[in-house]
């Protein structure tokens, strides 16, 4: 390849700049707001923060349960943010774990053991994405009630995986289908049982794909807001997104934005750490021998 002329480089560079700004700006904007005092929020420049403060974040956690003052004549309620945080961690970690286990098993079955019609099983599972979610929550609520999981975090552990499982099953089964069998067979000959071969050989060598599926599951689950707010009613039982929706935005805007970042930052960090693995895993799953 000949060196590219300067104008091509400049073009590429400016496109990169545009893309980066396009992707980052909205998040930057929210982050900036969460670092502002109420004063600056109303009167300052919306794009920058001159006196960054963590007071919004601190306030989030100062929720001993009682009201904490008045704005004008309105009572500012307080929110059990720590409970929400804990719930969120439980629900997210649990749902991702359930998703991974369930999809790994199914993916192995479809990609490796290939029961008759495995292709149609896989398609059927994937086709569950066409289900219209619009008013599904009405019967879904009935299911949850009949499982005695009303207002229980476990309800989300049943419902959330359904959002990610179809895609993850697809990824895993495509991956196992493409993966040469010899490595696993070699382990069998060496003295491993099927189970041992799966845990000692197949799983460790499939780490990127597990990461890819896990990140997809996390991203998908973390984007739900509707189900959480419908299925978790008790104020102490909410996840952060569901809880934020109950805030009096008119009064607590900055607090809410801080809450957004509180949840988002750990998720983003996890995603960032595994970002390379995510791409590598998707590649490995979709392309044989990659």
């Amino acid at each position: 390849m000949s060196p590219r002329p300067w104008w091509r480089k400049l073009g590429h560079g400016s496109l990169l700049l545009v893309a980066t700004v396009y992707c980052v700006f909205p998040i930057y904007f929210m982050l900036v707001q969460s670092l502002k005092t109420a004063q600056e929020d109303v009167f300052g420049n919306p794009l920058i923060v001159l006196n960054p403060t963590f007071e919004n974040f601190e306030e989030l956690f100062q929720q001993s349960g009682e009201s904490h003052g008045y704005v004008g004549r309105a009572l500012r309620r307080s929110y059990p943010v720590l409970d929400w945080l804990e719930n969120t961690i439980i629900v997210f970690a649990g749902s991702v774990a359930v998703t991974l286990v369930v999809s790994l098993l199914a993916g192995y079955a479809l990609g490796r053991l290939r029961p008759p019609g495995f292709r149609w099983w896989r398609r059927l599972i994937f086709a569950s994405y066409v289900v219209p979610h619009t008013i599904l929550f009405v019967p879904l609520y009935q299911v949850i009630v009949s499982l005695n999981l009303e207002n229980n975090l476990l309800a989300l552990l049943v419902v959330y995986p359904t959002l990610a499982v179809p895609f993850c099953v697809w990824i895993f089964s495509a991956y196992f289908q493409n993966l040469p069998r010899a490595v696993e067979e070699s382990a069998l000959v060496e003295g491993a049982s099927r189970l041992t071969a799966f845990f000692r050989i197949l799983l460790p060598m499939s780490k990127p794909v597990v990461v890819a599926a896990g990140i997809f599951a996390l991203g998908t689950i973390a984007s739900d807001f509707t189900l959480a707010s419908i299925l978790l009613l008790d104020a102490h039982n909410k996840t952060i997104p569901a809880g934020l929706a109950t805030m009096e935005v008119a009064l607590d805007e900055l607090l809410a934005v801080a809450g957004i970042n509180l949840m988002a930052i750990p998720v983003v960090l996890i995603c960032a750490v595994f970002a390379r693995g995510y791409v590598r895993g998707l590649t490995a799953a979709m392309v044989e021998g990659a």
Partner: protein
Amino acid sequence: MGRARDIRLAYLLLAPALLLLLTALAYPVGWEVWTSLTDLSPVNDHPTSFVGLDNYRRLSGDPAFWRAAANTVAYAALTSAVKLALGLGLALLLARPFRGRALVFLAIFLPWAYPASVSVIGWYWTLSPPIPTAYSVFMGNMKYAVDGALGGGAWAFVSVTLFNIWRGSSFIGIFLLAGINAVPPELFECAALESKSAWRRFWLVTVPLLKPFLALAVFLALTTAFADLANVWMLTAGRIVYPVLGTHAYWLAIHGGQFGPASALSLTLAPFLLAVLFVLFRMFDPPDQERA
């Protein structure tokens, strides 16, 4: 390694996934299908009766339905196309190594990684600030202008659409990058020797090689097109009145208590999505591989 035993094991391993999908999806969908054939409503004083295809028949005569359907199709097609185009652009930008690529890569990953459940709230509040802030006057003017041009609720609708595109293009960009990584660089180099026109190369080499990824991306874009809208709808308790099938169904069910028609309404799209999916399956099904 008895084949029969393998098959039994396969069904055993499939069971948890199927069970999960059955409880959390199959029953609700069954309920919805059944309900769409009845006049079920919490405000009924008479027992629910079976009405056959009445709900569907009534819908097909309702101009509001057709408008919502048109909006829905236009919305899904438009957002998916834009997401795909932007995503492909982002992926191609990152295709070749350059200094700082890791950072740009993370930046592009960010919109999707940033949890939509909360970012959509932030986005919505930012675009329709509930209290006076430094930028709320500007936003108010925007809203006024857009609503004035497109009708009430348009601004909220447009803003959520933009959010959906913003986030979706990030997902598709990263997804297609995974596809591009799988293409051996020799192929691109070979193509560069074959044809001088970058445009032809793009259509003759890049697109066919990425076909399975593109097909999967199209489908995921279509099915997730309405997720953010639903989120905002919940958040604002239905303040977005711009009619698409989903919101219209909510409206009928929650405000009108008409579960039958609402179910019928929300089911109308499923067959079309299914049809699209079956066309796309052929492009991204993993090929049958003979073992060596």
